[in-house]
């Protein structure tokens, strides 16, 4: 039922009470106001407001071309916003040094290729690069091993990445991102290439990370996964925010039918009560 908890509800971080150190972590880890992106005259994003807070899984959903990946790119600092502003932990994203940023947020892209035949172990170890020369290096082996196990790629350790299947490559990329141990995770369609079990794995990991105080922003196409695992959902269409809030509030049959151009019905799951989105066939 945590899936429907509001951002200030049953999260462990708020249970700690008025401890100022913990309370300050409730400020948005990532925030964007009025973000606009225009490329070659095409408006990819238009006046998008967004924020993601420690302790929550925030899903970005929307039809193809809605601007989900573009927004993720802006939040990651990959592309500048033509208008509006983005803050990471309260500071304008442009004022961050790349290395600091890499210790603060990790990004899983849709593209998981590795250009040269690095082994799985070598690629996952690359996730530790931002921590080189810091005391956090002592955790390298433990974090790498944990990430390999979490993503179920430990048995592929010595294989080269180009020899893996698409789904395996995606899991290796996720392992690398997890090993980076950044408190904010940006995941762009992490479930796209994965089978049923590993899709659930990825979102279980995302939820576990959020419950330990991290911030997770995840682009999802599967609305039922979003409904089951997200604390908050932002629905984008045509570069604008259509709705943002708890899964129950955002995922209404009428809204989804209209935005996606596909009639659906939304029924509560008989056991968990989470919204189930079923296309009308």
């Amino acid at each position: 039922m945590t899936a429907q908890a509001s951002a200030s509800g049953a999260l462990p971080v708020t249970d700690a009470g008025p401890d100022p150190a913990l309370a300050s972590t409730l400020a948005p880890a990532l925030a964007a106001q009025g973000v606009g992106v225009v490329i070659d005259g095409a408006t990819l994003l238009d006046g998008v407001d967004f924020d993601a807070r420690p302790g929550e899984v925030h899903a970005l959903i929307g039809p193809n071309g809605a601007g989900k990946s573009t927004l993720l790119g802006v939040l990651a600092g990959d592309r500048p916003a033509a208008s509006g502003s983005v803050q990471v932990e309260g500071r304008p994203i442009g004022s961050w040094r790349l290395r600091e940023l890499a210790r603060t947020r990790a990004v899983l892209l849709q593209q998981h290729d590795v250009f040269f035949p690095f082994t799985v172990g070598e690629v996952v170890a690359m996730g530790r690069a931002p921590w080189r020369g810091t005391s956090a290096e002592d955790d390298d082996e433990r974090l790498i091993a944990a990430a390999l196990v979490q993503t179920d790629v430990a048995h592929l350790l010595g294989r080269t990445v180009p020899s893996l299947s698409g789904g395996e490559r995606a899991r290796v990329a996720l392992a690398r991102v997890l090993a980076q141990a950044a408190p904010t995770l940006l995941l762009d369609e992490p479930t796209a290439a994965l089978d049923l079990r590993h899709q659930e794995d990825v979102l279980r990991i995302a939820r576990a990370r959020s419950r330990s105080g991290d911030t997770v922003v995840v682009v999802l196409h599967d609305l039922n996964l979003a409904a089951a695992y997200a604390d908050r959902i932002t629905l984008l269409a045509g570069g604008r925010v259509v709705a943002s809030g708890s899964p129950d509030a955002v995922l209404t049959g009428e809204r989804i039918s209209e935005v996606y151009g596909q009639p659906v019905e939304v029924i509560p799951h008989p056991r968990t009560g989470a919204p189930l989105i079923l296309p009308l066939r």
Partner: protein
Amino acid sequence: MSRVSDLVTDAVTPPSSPASPSRAEPSPAAPASPAAPAAASAPRRRPTRAAILFAGLAVTLVGVMLLAACSGQLPISPGEVWNSLLRGLGVDVPAAAVPTTDAALWSIRFPRIMMAVVIGAALAAAGTLMQAVFANPLAEPGVVGVSSGAALGAAASIVFGWAFLGEWTIAVAAFAAGLVTTLFVYLSSRSGGKTEVVTLVLTGIAVNAFAGAALALLMFLGDAGSREQIVFWQLGSLNGSRWQQFAVVAPLVVAGLVVAFLLARTLDLFSLGERGARHLGVNVEGVRIVVVVVVAVLVCAAVAFAGIIAFVGLVVPHLMRMIIGPVHRGLLAASVLGGAVLLLAADLVARTAVPMADLPIGLLTSLIGGPFFFWLLRRTRRRAGGWA
């Protein structure tokens, strides 16, 4: 990595799934015990392979150096070479049986050997750097116009009879023109603070074509003598290498290699793509600019005195990557050694294959390198479905 694999087989506790306590299979962890021992032993193979490779390359390098010192119009025994080496270093050893031995070694063969070593190392390291930083196996210093620019500079100084720097004029003109051409290609393919690899390669093609036409024009303008000189400069040769040249080339190459090794671990991250590297804190464009300058310096230093020597920068990194994998600290070191061995061996063949003649070494490396690269391509395609 071996300790990581030990940790993995210990099975780290998976994250709990507070949302689904009732599930029978709550953890994303993999038991994966049957595959674990095999996986654990796999990463250990590379260090062993690397040790064998480095030992083999080092022994081969010393062996070929000795062989090169012994071979030539005046055959010299290894013992004589050793004695001459000691004499040159001030050790009191009886004089050589043949009086010209010391002169042949110290003023002709030793400088030539040392030039082959540093130039081979420079070319191979430059190729490794280019391939790494553009995450592209076809990137080669020639792509960004280093060689064609240098050739143009050399040709211009030959045809117009420039002599403002005396006998060094051709080398300096080649070095400067190569450097300028590289920077031009790089800077003009940048847009909005970013370099697109395809744009870079296409810009390089355009600039190479222009430089080729300009070179043809210079040859047309020049007299028969300068035409011949340009042709032979382009074919590349280590004939006439001297210590003074080595004293110029070696510091440049060493400086370039130091920067390359400092960047080695960062270069690995480029294989994740530009965005992937950036997300791990790499200033992609900053590193690229440094690398392009280093590559230009390495290749220009080599080309300035030896002319154009193709394929070393393309083939050696590929070959070494096949043997010890793509991790750049090892790969760079192996490429440096491999490039030195390859060029030294090629030069030995170039000056001994045909009696009383010095074959152009650039011709030789392309003659062998071309078909070898073809074989390498086919083989890689079969095994890993290509590089892309």
